[in-house]
C-alpha cells in the first residue's frame, strides 16, 4: 500500500536550494526558498505546511547539538528477493541515493528545551515512508531505549503504509510496533505522536494511533486507506477535506492540531505534563507501586522543569 499516496517533496537530498523560489501548492504564492526554510517550510501567506525531511524535522526540534542517532547501521535486506518491474534492492539504492538516508525512519536521542527524549522520525521521501523490517526494528529500539532511560518517546509519522516489497514481514511490523508501545505502556513512559502529511496505512493502524497524546500538523492527510482506494471502492470523488487533520480532530481521532512553529514547545509542555504525574506516583505511601528506582531521578528533573513552566502561562484552547 506504500505508494498510493502522492506527496510532492521535490527537495531531494534533505534540504532546500538556496536562492531559488518555490510556489505554494495551496495559495500559489511564489516563495523565496531561504525565507521558506527560515519559516520552517511553512508558507508565510496561507500557512500551508510543506512536507519536510526527517533531518529538517530533527533540526527544528532538537536543541542545538543534542541529537545522537541510534541504530544508524540498520539497512533493509531483501528477504523476499522481491522484484516487480525492478528489483527491490535497486529501489532501495535509489532511495538511499536520493535522500542521503539509509531508511524511512531516523531514531535517536535528543533534547527539547533541555528535556531528554527519544525521537523516531519518519521520512516520506524514502520509499513513501513505508514501514518495513528496518522501520519496525528502529522503532522497537527507540522504545526500548525510552524504557531503559525513562525518557519519553516522540514519534513523528509520515507514511504511505507498509513496505510491500517485504511482504508479510512488513505487515507484521504493525504487530511489532504495537508490542513496542505496550512495552512503553507497562513502564509507563510517555509516548506522543505527531502525524504529518501523510500518515496512512499500517503506520496509522499501529503505533501512530496508540500514543498517549496524538498531535497532527495542519492539513495533513490522516487515513487508513489511501484516497484512491476509497474512490475506487465507493466510486465517488472524495471531498477536499477528506481525512485531513481538521476532519480527524472533529471526528475525535486526534487530540490537537499544532502548527510547526509551536510544535517543539507543545511537545515539551505535554511531555512535562505527562511526566508531572510521576510526582503523584512517587508520594511516600505509593512507593511500592513506583517501579524502578531510576524513575526517581527522572522525576526530580521533571519536577524542576514543571516548576519553571508554572511561571510561563500557556493555553492550548
Amino acid at each position: 500500500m506504500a505508494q498510493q499516496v502522492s506527496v510532492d517533496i521535490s527537495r531531494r537530498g534533505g534540504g532546500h536550494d538556496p536562492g531559488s523560489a518555490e510556489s505554494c501548492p495551496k495559495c500559489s504564492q511564489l516563495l523565496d526558498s531561504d525565507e521558506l526554510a527560515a519559516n520552517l517550510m511553512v508558507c508565510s501567506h496561507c500557512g500551508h505546511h510543506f512536507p519536510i525531511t526527517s533531518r529538517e524535522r530533527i533540526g527544528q526540534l532538537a536543541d542545538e547539538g543534542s541529537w545522537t542517532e541510534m541504530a544508524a547501521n540498520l539497512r533493509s535486506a531483501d528477504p523476499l528477493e522481491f522484484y516487480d518491474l525492478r528489483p527491490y534492492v535497486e529501489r532501495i539504492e535509489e532511495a538511499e541515493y536520493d535522500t542521503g538516508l539509509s531508511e524511512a525512519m531516523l531514531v535517536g536521542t535528543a533534547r527539547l528545551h533541555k528535556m531528554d527524549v527519544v525521537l523516531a522520525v519518519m521520512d516520506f521521501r524514502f520509499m513513501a515512508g513505508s514501514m518495513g523490517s528496518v522501520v519496525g526494528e528502529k522503532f522497537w529500539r527507540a522504545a526500548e531505549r525510552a524504557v531503559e532511560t525513562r525518557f519519553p518517546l516522540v514519534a513523528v509519522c509520515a507514511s504511505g503504509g507498509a513496505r510491500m516489497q517485504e511482504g508479510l514481514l512488513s505487515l507484521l511490523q504493525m504487530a511489532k510496533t504495537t508490542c513496542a508501545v505496550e512495552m512503553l505502556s507497562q513502564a509507563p513512559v510517555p509516548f506522543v505522536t505527531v502525524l504529518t502529511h501523510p500518515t496512512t496505512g499500517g503506520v496509522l493502524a499501529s503505533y501512530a494511533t496508540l500514543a498517549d497524546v496524538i498531535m497532527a500538523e495542519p492539513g495533513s492527510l490522516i487515513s487508513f486507506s489511501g484516497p484512491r482506494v476509497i474512490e475506487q471502492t465507493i466510486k465517488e470523488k472524495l471531498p477536499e477535506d477528506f481525512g485531513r487533520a481538521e476532519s480527524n480532530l472533529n471526528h475525535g481521532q486526534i487530540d490537537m492540531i499544532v502548527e510547526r512553529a509551536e510544535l517543539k514547545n507543545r511537545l515539551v509542555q505535554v511531555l512535562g505534563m505527562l511526566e508531572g504525574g510521576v510526582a503523584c506516583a512517587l508520594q511516600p505511601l505509593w512507593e511500592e507501586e513506583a517501579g524502578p528506582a531510576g524513575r526517581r531521578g527522572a522525576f526530580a528533573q521533571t519536577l524542576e522543569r514543571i516548576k519553571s513552566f508554572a511561571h510561563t502561562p500557556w493555553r492550548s484552547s
Partner: protein
Amino acid sequence: MRKRLSELSRLPTLPGVHLRDEASKIKRRLHELGGGGRGDSSAAWEKVKLARHADRPYTLDYIGLMFPGFIELRGDRCFANDPAIVGGLAAYQGRTLMVIGHQKGRDLASRTQRNFGMPRPEGYRKAQRLMALADKFGIPILTLIDTPGAFPGIAAEERGQGGAIASTLMRMTRLRVPTVAIIIGEGGSGGALALALADRVLMLENSVYSVITPEACAAILWRDAKEARPAARALKMTSADLEELEVIDGVLPEPRGGAHRDHEGAARIVKEALEENLRELEMIHPQARRQERLEKFRRIGVWRENGLTLF
C-alpha cells in the same frame, strides 16, 4: 421524627448497616422548622436560577484562573470530539492534574457549539479516555460539573447515551488515582453524575444537584411545568439541603454576592478546596482509596427494614 429517633436509639448497630448520625438529623429538622429560608419555596428556586446564571464561571474559566498551564485533549477516538465536555492536562503546583468538566457557552454561537453543556455519548467516552490516561501516569483527576443533563436526542440515544454514562461511572470506580468532583453550577441528573463518582464530591454554595430539573419534575408530578418552584424545594437540590442529607462531602462558600460576581474569588475557593482534599486523599494508599470510594457510594440510601429507618 421523635418516634423514629427513639426507635433508632433503642437498637444496636446492625452489621452492614450505616446509622446516620442523628445529631445532624435533628439539626436539619430544627433548621427547617426555624425557617432559614428553606421552608420558603422561592429560596430553592432562587438557588436554581443562581446556579444557571449566565455570568457564573464555567469550567474553562476555572481552568484559566486556577492553573498556569493547560493543554486540552480532545476526542473519544471513536466518533467525535464533544465540545460539551472539555478535558486536559493542567499544571498544578509543580505537578499535573487531569481536569474534566462540562462546558456551557456564553453567547449564542458558543452555546450552540457547546450544545448548552449537554454532552452526547462521545463526551462521556472522551472523559473515560482521559481518566484512563490520568490513571496510567498517576495523575489525580478533578471534575467540574455543570450541565442541565445529558443531551436527549435520537442520534445520541442510538450511540448509547445510557451505556456511555454507565461505563463512565464504572471507569470512575476503578481509578487508582485520587478524584475530586466539584459541582460548580447545574448538577443535572445522570449527565452530571457520570463525572461525579469521586472520592470527594463538593458543591459550590449556589450550585444545585438533582435527579431531575424542577421544571420536568413539576411537569410530571404537578402536571404543570410552571410549578417548578415547589418542585425545586421538594427535590432538596441545593447545596445546604444535600449537605444535610449527607450525600455530598462538603459545601464551598462562594464569594460575597455569588461566584458570578467574582470569578477570581470563586476560583480561589475551588483551588483551596482542591488542595485540601487532594492532600487528604493522597495520604491513602490507592487500593484503600478505591475501596473507600466503593464503600462511600455503597452506603448511600435511606430505607426502612423491620420497622427501622436505616441510612
